[in-house]
């Protein structure tokens, strides 16, 4: 009987970068901007976070630096997509290509290096909590922070006035503008938040998940995050659950390989992607219901 706790922990860790990146993208899309540059911003975030750690920063500083780098990268995208009304799909793809190359350019000196494992004091303290400590003690504080981010995003979108305004901007920028909301500024803020979260997601991968930098580290996780937002029908709760579901699917396929040796391992490796397609289909099938949830102005530029 395999020990299930490490599997659970591995699934939680595998899901965490997706939680950050997908929630960030969700906020941007809720404001009406689709940013396909998540992968590129994650790559740069991963390099910057890792470089900060190698430079002697602690994980909080490294995470902050990565978030700042992600936001900085989102800025030219926002300028194109929000201020200039450029095609968001194209601008996002440009950002991914640019970010991936930039990451490998600045990450060159760090390729193949690894961080010395250093469980944070917070994590050790959490391990002492009776009951929950068994799980918490194995999870980096950045995992807990992702839960806080989830709570924060949920509260913001559904309970805060500013969140209401952001949603209004995504639904109908013209009416939001008419009643005096600065549509452009709000969209900028949402895109920059998305960038910061993508950067943080990247840093989580390089600093906590694998504790090293190498090219190909992000390996398509940014794209999965974009898919998760649709999967979640733009609702943070489903987004949060979906991230762990995908993380769990990745672990399950590795786990299943020895149990189901007759199935080609390539097919097992493809399962998480196939599952994503199936889920997208199931979610999108009911057009009326989907339209109820998709931000009405998604992908459409707005100019006053």
């Amino acid at each position, binding site marked *: 009987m395999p020990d299930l706790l490490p599997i659970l922990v591995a699934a939680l860790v595998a899901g965490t970068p997706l939680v950050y990146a997908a929630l960030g993208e969700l906020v941007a899309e809720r404001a009406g901007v689709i940013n396909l540059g998540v992968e590129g911003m994650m790559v740069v975030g991963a390099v910057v976070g890792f470089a900060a750690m190698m430079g002697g920063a602690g994980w909080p500083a490294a995470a902050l630096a990565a978030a700042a780098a992600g936001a900085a990268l989102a800025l030219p995208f926002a300028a*194109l997509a929000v201020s200039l009304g450029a095609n968001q799909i194209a601008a996002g793809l440009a950002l991914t*290509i640019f970010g*991936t190359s930039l990451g490998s350019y600045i990450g060159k000196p760090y390729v193949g290096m690894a961080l010395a494992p250093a469980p944070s004091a917070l994590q050790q303290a959490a391990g002492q909590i009776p009951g929950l400590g068994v799980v918490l003690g194995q999870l980096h504080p950045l995992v807990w922070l992702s839960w806080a981010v989830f709570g924060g995003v949920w509260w913001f979108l559904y309970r805060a006035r500013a969140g209401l305004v952001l949603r209004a901007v995504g639904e109908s920028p013209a009416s939001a503008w008419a009643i005096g909301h600065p549509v452009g500024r709000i969209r900028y803020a949402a895109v920059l938040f998305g960038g910061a979260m993508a950067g943080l997601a990247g840093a989580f991968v390089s600093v906590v998940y694998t504790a090293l930098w190498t090219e190909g580290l992000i390996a398509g996780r940014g794209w999965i995050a974009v898919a998760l937002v649709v999967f979640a029908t733009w609702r943070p709760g489903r987004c949060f659950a979906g991230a762990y579901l995908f993380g769990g699917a990745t672990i399950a396929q590795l786990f299943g390989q020895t149990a189901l040796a007759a199935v080609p391992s390539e097919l097992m490796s493809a399962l998480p992607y196939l599952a994503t397609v199936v889920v*997208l289909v199931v979610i999108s099938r009911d057009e009326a219901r989907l339209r109820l949830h998709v931000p009405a102005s998604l992908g459409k530029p707005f100019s006053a």
Partner: protein
Amino acid sequence: MPLRIERRPRPSRAMSWASPLIAAALTAAVAMILFALDGREPVSTLWIFLTTPLADLYGFGELLLKAAPLILIGVGLAIGFRAGVWNIGAEGQLVLGVIFGGWLALEFGGAGPWVMPAMLLAGGIGGALWAAVPALLRTRFNASEILTSLMLNYCAQLWLAYLVFGPWRDPAGFNFPQSAPLHPDALLPIVIENTRANIEIVIAVAAALVAWIFIERTHLGFQLRVTGAAPGAARYAGFPVRRAVWIGMLTGGFAAGVAGVGEIAGPLGQIFPTASAGYGYAAIIVAFLGRLHPAGIVPAGLLLALLAIAGDYAQMMLGMPSSIGGLFQGTLLFFLLAADVLTTWRIRRVEDAPLPATEAA
């Protein structure tokens, strides 16, 4: 002297031609700044960067070899993009071309000169079939083709890996992941002697011409353009969006599939699990850089191929990481999208500004 941005009464034709040039100039400026930061003489470095790949006829052939799949796929994708169909799955569709064309080559390799054209056709069909999946999911189940086509890229890649690591492995190849070499009948003819440039570049340019006529001169092409520009109006005029999705996805998939055959029947001559080389993604930039117009996509494909080759040579000649090739590609697309704004907007000096208060501030 207050300046104001305002919408042009109609998109400027002159600007739509000028904006790629503006973008190229700005990218060159960024490149020179990067070279200068690296402690190099900017102008001569840029010169070396851009001209080394073209120093001889062979280099020119290499440019055509690399540009051919980019142009071919770019043209195919542009038809969909114009109709608002976002096929991000050209990479996987290319891989399906490798699988279908490769199967034919391995089964019927020496059967006669018909094999090569049949491979191109089979590859195209394979790519189109793979593209049909997101098309079906979009038209039937309303699922976003951006994401489904992207996910299928990973699946296609793994499928090819399965075949080359398994059934298609060269029995004489000691178990290494490669097929047996393709029969000479299955290879594309070389068009410039002593280079690797093959017939695919001719196919690509021909495809661009056909696409040009299709877009500009046929009713269906017109319908597609309208669907992309104003889906509501298109529906009102009785052009079903559904048809646009199918045509857009299938042409992109077909072109990518043909390009996939171009790789195994061209520079590779064998089937490898990594046959795709990322052309399916790069072609998306090519399509945009070429303003989604065949006449623009041909030079855009050449330019992107040049940047990719130059990135490798920069390493050899200048000792810079080859990732600067990709860096400049991304920068170029950014600037192009920004410069594009000038086709629909203009900056005007406002002579009699009615709001002097803001001017004072």
